[in-house]
C-alpha cells in the first residue's frame, strides 16, 4: 500500500503539477481587493475577474496549499452567480471549515460536530424561501454525522451540501478519517490504515447517490485547472438544483491537506491525482432532471 510521502521521480510530472499549483496559487493570491476596472484616457478596460461579492476581503487562515479556500471561492462564485447572497444561510460545521463566518458575507449558523446537515435542514424547513448550504469535512459527515447526512439526503431536503474530503482530520492534527486511504499513515494509523483494523475508506458520493432523496451528486477535484473548472460547474449546478427546488444536492470535493499529509503543496496536489482520484473517481453520479413532486 502506498504511503502519503510519495517519492517524486518523474520530471515531466513535476513540471505538470508545478504548473497546476502555480495556477491555483494565482487563483488564490490574486489581489481581488483591487478594483481594476479603471479608465485610462478613453481606454476602457473590462473587469473580467474579481473577488466574489459574498467573500469578505480577509486572508484565509487555511494552510499554504490547502484546497479549502478554493472550495470557499467556488461556493461564493455560485452564490454570486444566482444573486442569492442576501437570502443565503451558511451552516458552519466543526473542523477547518468552522470559520466560514469569517469569510462569507452572509448569515452563518454554527452547528455541533457532525450535525451540520440536520441544522441546515432545520433552517430550510423554517424558511423555505432561503438558500441553505453547508460545507462538511470528512470527519464531520463521514464519521460522527453520517446518520444526519444520510437522512438529510434521504428526506430530499432542498439544501446544498459541499463535502470537503481530504482524507484526514485537519483541525485536530492529522488523525485517521473515514476516508483515509488504505496504507495511509496518520497520527492514529501510524502503521498505515489497515482494513483488518480500521475498515475501508468510505465513498460518500456513491452512497448519497443510492438514496432516492438526492437530486444531484457529484465528485470533483480542484488539483488542476481542468478539474477546477469542472468543480466550479458542479458547485454551481448544486446551487441551481436548490434554487429550482429539485431537492438535495451534494458535491464531494477531493482536497489536499499538505500540512497533515506531510507533503509540499505540489506533492499534495500530485497525491490527489495519483492516489485519491483512483479510489474516489470523479464525475456526476446523479442528476435529477425533474423535481420528484412534479
Amino acid at each position: 500500500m502506498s504511503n502519503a510521502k510519495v517519492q517524486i521521480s518523474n520530471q515531466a510530472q513535476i513540471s505538470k503539477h508545478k504548473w497546476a499549483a502555480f495556477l491555483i496559487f494565482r487563483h488564490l493570491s490574486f489581489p481581488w481587493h483591487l478594483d481594476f476596472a479603471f479608465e485610462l484616457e478613453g481606454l476602457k478596460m473590462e473587469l473580467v475577474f474579481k473577488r466574489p461579492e459574498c467573500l469578505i476581503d480577509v486572508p484565509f487562515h487555511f494552510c499554504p496549499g490547502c484546497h479549502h479556500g478554493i472550495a470557499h471561492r467556488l461556493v461564493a462564485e455560485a452564490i454570486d452567480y444566482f444573486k442569492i447572497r442576501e437570502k443565503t444561510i451558511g451552516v458552519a460545521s466543526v473542523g477547518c471549515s468552522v470559520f466560514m463566518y469569517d469569510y462569507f458575507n452572509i448569515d452563518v449558523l454554527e452547528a455541533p460536530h457532525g450535525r451540520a446537515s440536520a441544522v441546515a435542514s432545520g433552517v430550510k424547513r423554517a424558511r423555505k424561501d432561503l438558500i441553505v448550504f453547508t460545507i462538511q469535512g470528512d470527519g464531520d459527515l463521514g464519521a460522527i454525522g453520517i446518520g444526519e447526512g444520510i437522512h438529510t439526503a434521504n428526506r430530499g431536503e432542498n439544501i446544498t451540501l459541499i463535502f470537503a474530503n481530504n482524507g484526514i482530520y485537519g483541525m485536530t492534527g492529522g488523525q485517521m478519517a473515514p476516508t483515509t486511504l488504505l496504507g495511509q499513515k496518520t497520527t492514529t494509523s501510524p502503521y498505515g490504515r489497515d482494513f483488518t483494523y480500521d475498515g475501508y475508506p468510505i465513498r460518500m458520493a456513491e452512497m448519497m447517490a443510492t438514496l432516492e432523496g438526492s437530486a444531484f451528486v457529484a465528485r470533483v477535484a480542484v488539483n488542476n485547472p481542468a478539474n477546477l473548472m469542472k468543480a466550479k460547474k458542479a458547485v454551481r449546478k448544486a446551487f441551481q438544483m436548490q434554487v429550482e427546488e429539485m431537492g438535495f444536492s451534494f458535491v464531494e470535493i477531493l482536497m489536499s491537506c499538505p500540512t497533515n499529509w506531510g507533503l509540499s503543496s505540489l506533492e499534495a496536489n500530485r497525491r490527489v491525482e495519483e492516489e485519491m482520484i483512483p479510489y474516489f473517481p470523479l464525475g456526476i453520479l446523479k442528476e435529477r432532471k425533474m423535481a420528484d413532486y412534479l
Partner: protein
Amino acid sequence: MDQNLEKILVRGNEAVAMGAIDAGCRLFFGYPITPQNEIPEYLSKHLPPLGGEFIQAESEIASINLLLGASATGARAMSSSSSPGISLMQEGISYMAGSELPAVIVNISRSGPGLGGISASQGDYFQATRGGGHGDYRMIVLAPSTVQEMYDLTCLAFDLSDKYRNPAMILGDALIGQMKEPLIRRKPQQMDLPPKDWKLTGAKGRKPNKIKSLYLQEGELTEHNWKLYQKYEKMKEEEVRFETVNTEDARFVIAAFGSMARVSKTAMELAREEGMKVGLFRPITLFPYPEKALYDISTRVKQFLTVELNTGQMVEDVRLSVGRDAQVFFYGKPPGALPPPEEILEEIKKYY
C-alpha cells in the same frame, strides 16, 4: 386560534401539543419514545394543516439539531422526548445555550438509568436543572403537576425562552403525560418580548448575523460565560414560580414537584384532618429554583420533608435554600411504584 373555553378531557401529552400550537409553534422535530408519543402524534396531524412542519427525525440527536436550525431563523419550534432521548439531546441543548438560541424541549421523563423502564420517575431532576450537557449553562425548567399546567407552562416556556434567548424545558413524567384531566384551552397573553434582531433571515440590507458558540480570542469566552451567568441571575430575580398550600400556619412543610406534589398534597390534607399543621411547597420553576421563597418559609417552619420519585435530587436544593436551623428530611421512591398518600403521611408522623 379559537379560544375554546369549554372544558375538554385530554391527556397531559396532548395538552403540551395544544399549548405549543397556541403559543405559535409551527415546527416540531422528534423521534418516537414512550411515554411521550402522543405529542409527536398530535402535532404530526395538526401542524401541516396550519402550514407548519413536522419531521420524524432519525434520532433525538437529529431532532435537537433540526430544532437548533429552525430556532436560528427566529421561528418558534419544539422537540419532545423522554429520558434516554433527552440524554442524546444534551449536546444540542448545550450548543443552543452557548449560541443563545431559544427553543422548547419537553421531557416526559421515564425511569433510568439506562433503558430503565417506562414508569414515572423524577430521576432527571439533576440533568434538567444542572445544565445536563457540557459547559457552564442552565436551562429554564418548568415542572407541571396537572394537565392544565402542561398546557399553560408550555405556552409560558416559549415566552421565557424567547425572552432570555435560552432553551426551556418542560419536565413532566409518565404520570402527568399519560393521565387525562379537564383542560381549559385558554391561550395566555403573550409577554412583551424583545425583537429577534439576531435571527438569520439572509443578510439583506444589514450586516451578516452570526450565531455561534465558538469563542477563541483571549478573554472572549470568559466574557461570554459571564454574560450567560448574568442572564441566569436575572431569571432568578424575575422568573421564579412556585405554589404554596397551607404554609402560613404550618410547622411542617412537604416540598415536592410535578406528579409527587399531587400525592403530597393529598398526604398534607390527610395530616391536616388529623390536626397536624402541615403545608406544601411546590416549585414550578425548577430552574430558577425558588430559593428565597423557601428560605422565607424556613424562618417560620423548621421541619421539611422532601418527597421525590428518586433517591434524592431536589432535596439538595431544598437543603441549600432553607435556613441552617431547619431540618430537611427526605422520602424517596425510586421508579417502579408511586407511593400512596398514606405512606407519606406515615413519614410525616415520624418527624412531626
